[in-house]
């Protein structure tokens, strides 16, 4: 198996708080890897560090045999890693179409952009219907789809999803997880962060359990789902 991303002994401070204390994990090409853990475990911090929004104190992030821990976000996007941030963060005031255009900001080839539009609209038909609408007027689920569509417009090799199910109605949650599986089947590697551990582990190839800034456990999605401690701590019994 080819390792796409390797995180090595990552330490990240948030101001004076030591949010991530020496975390290591890897993502193989084609996998869905899930990081689960309670609030404050450092999940989002790890994601923001990978995508270049935060700088690590020490440790390495190796992507396709290249160290990227000191690269800024736009460079990381150009390398093929797109993040869908927690809470969607669609651009309000910009139309759905414009939001998607922003997603392929770094792509110069118009034909490529056209083709990605077709793919994204194919995957999210609702976005096509609403393409001229202000992104702020979409429902939570639709905004999540827009945020994912926007990330896909960059044609990433690795997509980082931060709490995609947060605040969504159950029907949307199922839909979103189905879409994640589909995206993965079409060749995009996925790093998924979730508080909805059950859902996340059920679609993940492998998972890591984080608590207070370090990895407590790891295994395949099934193993972790079956694990007593994981069940007790994160799956409600």
């Amino acid at each position, binding site marked *: 198996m080819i390792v796409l991303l390797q995180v090595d002994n990552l330490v990240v401070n948030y101001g004076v708080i030591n949010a991530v204390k020496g975390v290591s994990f890897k993502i193989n090409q084609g996998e869905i890897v899930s990081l689960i853990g309670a609030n404050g475990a450092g999940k989002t911090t790890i994601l923001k560090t990978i995508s270049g929004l935060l700088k690590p104190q020490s440790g390495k992030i190796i992507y396709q045999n290249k160290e990227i821990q000191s690269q800024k976000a736009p460079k990381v996007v150009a390398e093929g890693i797109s993040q869908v941030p927690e809470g969607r963060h669609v651009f309000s005031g*910009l139309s759905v179409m414009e939001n998607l255009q922003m997603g392929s900001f770094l792509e110069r080839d118009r034909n490529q952009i056209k083709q990605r539009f077709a793919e994204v609209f194919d995957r999210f038909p609702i976005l096509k219907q609403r393409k001229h609408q202000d992104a702020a007027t979409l429902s939570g689920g639709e905004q999540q789809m827009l945020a994912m569509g926007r990330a896909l417009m960059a044609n990433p090799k690795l997509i980082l999803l931060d709490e995609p199910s947060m605040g969504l109605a159950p029907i949307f949650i199922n839909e979103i997880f189905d879409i994640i599986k589909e995206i993965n089947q079409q060749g995009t590697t996925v790093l998924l962060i979730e508080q909805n551990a059950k859902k996340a582990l059920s679609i993940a190839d492998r998972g890591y359990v984080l608590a207070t800034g370090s990895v407590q456990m790891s295994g395949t999605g099934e193993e972790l789902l079956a694990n007593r401690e994981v069940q007790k701590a994160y799956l409600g019994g």
Partner: protein
Amino acid sequence: MDTLFQQIINGLSLGSIYALLALGYTMVYGIIKLINFAHGDIYMLGAFWGYYVINTWHFNFISALLSAMVVGAASGVIIEYFAYRPLRHSPRITALITAIGVSFFLENGMSYLFSSNTRDFPQIIKQVNYHIGGVLISNIQVLILVTACALMVLLQLIIKKTKMGRAMRAVSVDADAAELVGININWTISFTFALGSALAGAAGVLIGLYYNSIDPLMGMTPGIKAFVAAVLGGIGSVPGASVGGFLIGILETFVQSIGLSAYKDAVVYFVLIVILLILPAGIFGKNVKEKV
């Protein structure tokens, strides 16, 4: 009735200058939440540049205007790079005080280098007055209005239709998310300063033509009035800044026309106080989606 129309014409000419300046305030505020108090001084630099190139190199109006826009844009970008960028993550008050410092630096630096005398702005375009139904309108007023409106339309096109314009709007609503799609934040902020300051440079040349005199402190009062215009329109709103600029210009000329010239500045500041009390978000303030 004729006086009314006359004052509206005069007010629109003056107002279009305020509008050009207010756009710079509002765009910079939209993107980095800074009231750039040095903005009025870029307008002064534009006027001085126009004065210099027309006198020394015998530029015509168009080339003086365009080159002043380039000089304005360059000064805006340089000021942002050296004065505001190092303070990007400081408290907002720090950047605000720095902006006032930059303003003093430019005003006094220009006074020191080129003396604080008032100069006559060269009249490259001969003034011709037209009488239209009892209203007196000069070709310079028409030129100012047309130029200002053309620049505003151009700005609107840049913001709405170009990739950089979309990037500006994206950064102003959500800088982190903008970075995550690959937008270079520093570049976009520089671009915003360049656009706003180019308009200020243009306004400097236009006011030189209109009022015929320039001096190193000329940017102070119009700068603050344009700031009031931006607040009136709703700071952060691009259409708001244009509307606010025209309203302030018209208000000022009306106050003058009823014989209260001495109070024309006071009235504008009074408007600021009233707006902050009654309508703090400004006319277009609710319309957050137009924010840049």
